[in-house]
Every structure is written in structure tokens, then in C-alpha cells.
């Protein structure tokens, strides 16, 4: 099969993201957010391209990417479930909820289910501390979670597949 040259290479796509942030001061973080929004993760192969474009060393770029919890090294599942484990949520049963989620999904905090559908992550505070336990599903905030409510949300997400 001939190579489809109408598809821009990853390096070109990375460069076009960088171009969109040319005017930003200290642009690396906004660029990494944009890359993760576009690709779903920040690939190792992007690092040399970023280093060259921004006149930084590869080590510097690598250091930044790995410092922040948000940037993933590989794609996440279709649904990303983040459960809050900070103090206020702990006071109303966050740990039981995490245990329930791990059992239901059959995978641990920080990993993706075997079928690649759901990534389960921990987070420390979502700013919903009066309505805990709190969680976030694909960026949407949920409050007053319990096992039944969480199951309902995950079922609804699975149905949308």
C-alpha cells in the first residue's frame, strides 16, 4: 500500500501545535496540554521535536513532562475515572469507594482495565469537598458518590460506547 502523504507526520503535527503557542511566554506547559488534548498522551518521540523547536535540551523537556501528574506516557482508556482520596473525601468514605471501584473494574488505581475501556486514577481534591466522596468522569464532576451511584455512572458510560 502506498504511503498516504496527505497525512501529516507526528513531528509535523507537534510542530503545528508549537506554532499555535509561539506568542506565549514560557510556552511548554500550554504546549504539552495541547499535545495531550490532540493525541491523548505525550509520546516519548515528541520530546526531541519539542526540544528542537523550543531550544531546550531533551533532558529539560523530559524533566517537565515527568514532573507533572497530568501528562500520560500512553493513551488512557475511553473513560477516565478519577476518585478523590484527600482528607475531606476520606472523612465520608472515599477509601471504601476506591476499593469498590477497584473490585468492579478488576484493576488497580493508576491502571486501565484489561479491555482498555476504563482508566482509574486517584486525585487529591476536586474542589467538591462539601459533597464528597467526589469523582470526575471524563472531566465531569460528580458528588455524593457511593457504590451504587458510581456503578450507575459507569454503566451509563459503557452504554455510550
Amino acid at each position: 500500500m502506498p504511503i498516504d502523504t496527505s497525512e501529516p507526520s507526528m513531528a509535523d503535527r507537534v510542530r503545528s501545535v508549537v506554532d499555535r503557542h509561539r506568542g506565549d511566554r514560557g510556552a511548554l506547559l500550554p504546549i504539552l496540554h495541547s499535545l495531550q488534548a490532540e493525541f491523548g498522551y505525550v509520546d516519548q518521540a515528541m520530546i526531541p521535536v519539542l526540544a528542537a523547536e523550543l531550544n531546550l535540551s531533551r533532558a529539560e523537556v523530559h524533566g517537565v513532562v515527568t514532573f507533572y501528574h497530568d501528562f500520560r506516557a500512553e493513551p488512557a482508556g475511553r473513560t477516565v475515572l478519577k476518585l478523590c482520596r484527600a482528607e475531606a473525601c476520606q472523612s465520608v468514605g472515599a477509601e471504601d469507594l476506591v476499593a469498590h471501584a477497584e473490585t468492579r473494574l478488576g484493576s488497580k488505581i493508576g491502571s486501565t482495565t484489561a479491555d482498555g475501556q476504563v482508566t482509574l486514577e486517584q486525585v487529591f481534591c476536586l474542589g467538591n469537598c462539601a459533597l464528597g466522596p467526589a469523582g470526575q468522569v471524563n472531566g465531569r464532576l460528580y458528588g455524593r458518590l457511593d457504590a451504587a451511584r458510581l456503578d450507575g455512572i459507569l454503566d451509563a458510560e459503557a452504554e455510550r460506547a
Partner: protein
Amino acid sequence: MTITIYVPRDSAACSVGADAVASAITREAAASGADVRVVRNGSRGMLWLEPLVEVATEAGRIGYGPVSASEIPALIEAGLFTGGAHGKRLGLVEELPWMADQQRLCFARVGVTDPVSADDYLAHGGMAGLRRALTMDPAEVVKEVTDSGLRGRGGAGFPAGIKWNTVHNTPGELKFVCCNADEGDSGTFADRMLIEGDPFCLIEGMAIAAYATGASEGYVYLRSEYPDAVATLRQAIEIAYARGWLGQDYLGSGQRFDLFVRVGAGAYICGEETSMLESLEGKRGMVRSKPPIPAITGLFGKPTVVNNVLTLASVPSILAQGAAAYAALGVGRSLGTQVFQLAGNIKHGGVFETAFGMSLATLVNDYGGGTRSGRPVRAVQVGGPLGTYLPASTMDLPLDYEAFAAAQAMLGHGGIVVFDDTVDMASMARFAMEFCAEESCGKCTPCRVGSVRGVETIDRIVAGVEPEANLVLLGDLCELMTDGSLCAMGGLTPNPVLSALRHFPEDFTARHEGTAP
């Protein structure tokens, strides 16, 4: 006549169904042919009543809550559109004790207005502070803020006027105003609610700071955990530009001020101001040693004001009403109002803005209604994950910076997290160490390594392995972290740990006796 119904768009309200309630009202109103306008306001801060629906009547705004989408047809049947009787009817919202007893300055408009309506903002006193500031010299504006007694709301309580004065007096072609909206502490959500509920207030506060200090660019460092706040603030900034409240010659000031939103990337330490500046510069969020202070050498080495969201959002009302009016509130050196946040195992959780000086017990037991579980309050942590755990017996403490410091506690950001008697304080102490290990920037050894050792040591104590020796070791570790850490992350982590030990020693031994190997 058009009927106006309010349903909050605040993400906490939406986290328990406000969007579905708003759609149900729109749908049912259309079906019945009623002329209804649904306004998506911020939250009133009575989070246990969310979703809180309000209807504007001649007598005032009448509330119903908490309301679910499935209840909407019955509510309409009962006369929701005219404030009719129903089991969920609360009466006039402004007259509920929780609302009536507050002194809302910073949060005056939150829950009242449509957060992204510039006209609403103006109609409710918006821009009066900036307008007055522009009739004064920048130095007079700085003095007004100094005279108000306003102290930083981000935790340390440093006087805002002194900081502004340093930036004002430091020469520079380029200066910055940076708003710290990282709000990583558990139990705090007022920054988020202010940004989602009244973003123009923050914009106005930053514009005043820019005028007072001669800054031409502003950045709001907003955490990625708050996507709704990011979207609302970006929308409000666009509107502010269109109104001439930002940009070249903003509001006829003769100066330029540009404002940008920067999203964090999930690192608690980036709430520390120098770490935040590193992050804004596109680097790892490693804490800088001070001096130099950011007011002199800040973002990209330029003079920079760094203030918390609520500090900046308090400024418009101070300028509008005058320093004296603000300074008349509060106690001792804790002047003005604080936006307290009641969270955790609490019956009536939410935001409560009042003058400094109310007792913690009044806030938690009377307004907060005690625990959500109905069990006795056992411990309260004030000031976030680095704050002290207070036992129920010491809760008559007045809410003011100095009184808390005197009691080896800290008021911090005003976040209050309540625990009932099922809490295991040894596990909370362990969590404090674990959190420090997870979120340490890694620059200094006491914090990076000490916290990991702290977790191990608490595990041994709880397991009954040489508890006496390990308790001594834990004490030493805490001393080392307090004395040897560059910033408050490592320096204050001993606070929750030692207070848990001090006030709840039984959790570290008695409960676990017999489990020793």
C-alpha cells in the same frame, strides 16, 4: 410576564444534578406554554441544598432544594413559578439564617448574578472599585489596600498592601500580577466558586492591582482539576476585553493590562508561589529559595505581585467602600471577612463568609449542623493538609490568625474539614506523610526522604513494632522536617502528624494492642 428561575451552573451544584434540573425546567415550561427564563447563576454556597432552584417573585427570590430533575413536574404543579407551597420550599433565600447571618463582601454577588453577564455585574456594583481606583494615584491605591488590613488569603496571611508597595516601588518596564488559583488543599473550594460564580470580580481585582503596581500583564494559574472554572474564566476574560475592561487603555486608565489563564498540570506544590512561577515559566515546579522575593524578582525575573484568588477578589469592594469600612470588621490583626469553607463529614457544608472572630465551634456545630453521619465530631482539620488536627474539646477557638497560631494551629485558607468518631487518626497521620512524599518537589532531603521514612515509622508504631523507639524516631523526623525544609510542604507536614499524636494518642497504641507480632 417572563418568569425568572435560577439554577446554579457551579460545578458542585452540577455534580449533584443541576444541569438535569435546568433542562427539566426548560422542557416542562415549554410544554406548559409558560414564559420562563432560566438563569444559570453561581451557587449560594449552601451546598447541602444543591441543586437549589430559585424563583424571582415580587417578595424576593424563593428557594427550593435540594431538587432533583424528576421532582420538577410535581414542583411546577405545586406552583414553582409563583413560589407555591411544596415540601422542598425553603422560603426567601436571603432570609435563611445561613445567608442572613453572613457578611458577604467577596462573595456578595456569587449565587446572585449570572456569572458571565457583564450587565449583571455592573447592575450589582461591579467596576465601582476599579473606577474609584482610577481617580486616585497608584500609590494611594496601594495605601488604601494597606489601610484595609487585607492579608493574603492563600494561607500565610501576609499583608497584601506591603507586597503591592514593594512591586510599586520596584522600577521595571515589565511587571506582572499573578493570581494563585491552584487551590490544592483538601477542604477548600472558595477560589473555584468565586471564579465560577463571579469571575469579573477577580478580573477587576487584578486590574486594580495592575494599576496600583504598574503591571501590564496578568496570569491566573488555575489548576487542571477545575475544567469548569477554566472555561468560565476564559469566557469572562473575552467579555471583559470586549467591554474595554482589559487591554489597551482599559477603562480609560491610560495603561495596558492583558490577562491570561494558565492551566496547571496536577502538582500540589505548584500552589507554593515560587514553584508556581517556575511552572508559569514552563519549567518543573521546583521551589525557589527566598530571597529574592517575587515582588522584586518574580516571573521571568520581573517584579511580580502574587496573590490568592480571594485576596484579589476582596480588593474591588475595599476600593469601592473604602479601607475603613473593611478594617472595621474582624478582630485584632485579622481584619475584614474570611470565606470559610465547611467540608468533609458535615451536615451543612458550603461557604460562609463572615468577619474574623467567630468561634470554630459555632461555625461547625451551629451553622454546619455537626456531622453528616449524625455521630459526634471527633476531629477537625483547619487550613488544609498541612493544618493541625484539633479535637472537639478545643473548638471554642476564635477564627483569627493569631489565636490559631497561639494554639499551634493555622487558619490558612479557611478550609475546615470535619471528621466523626469513626476516624482513625493514626491513618490520617500516615496519610499526611504519604501526601508529602507523593507531592514533594524533591528539592530537599528532609521533605523528600523524611516523609517516606515517616510513613514507614507510623506503620511500625501501629503494628506494635518497638512503639516507644519508633515514636521517638517519628518525633526526630518531624523536627528535622520542620527545621530543614526549604518550604512549608516539608516544614508543615509535621503539623497534622504531631497534632494527631498529641490529641489522639490512643489511636497509635491501644486500638492496635494485641496485633503486635
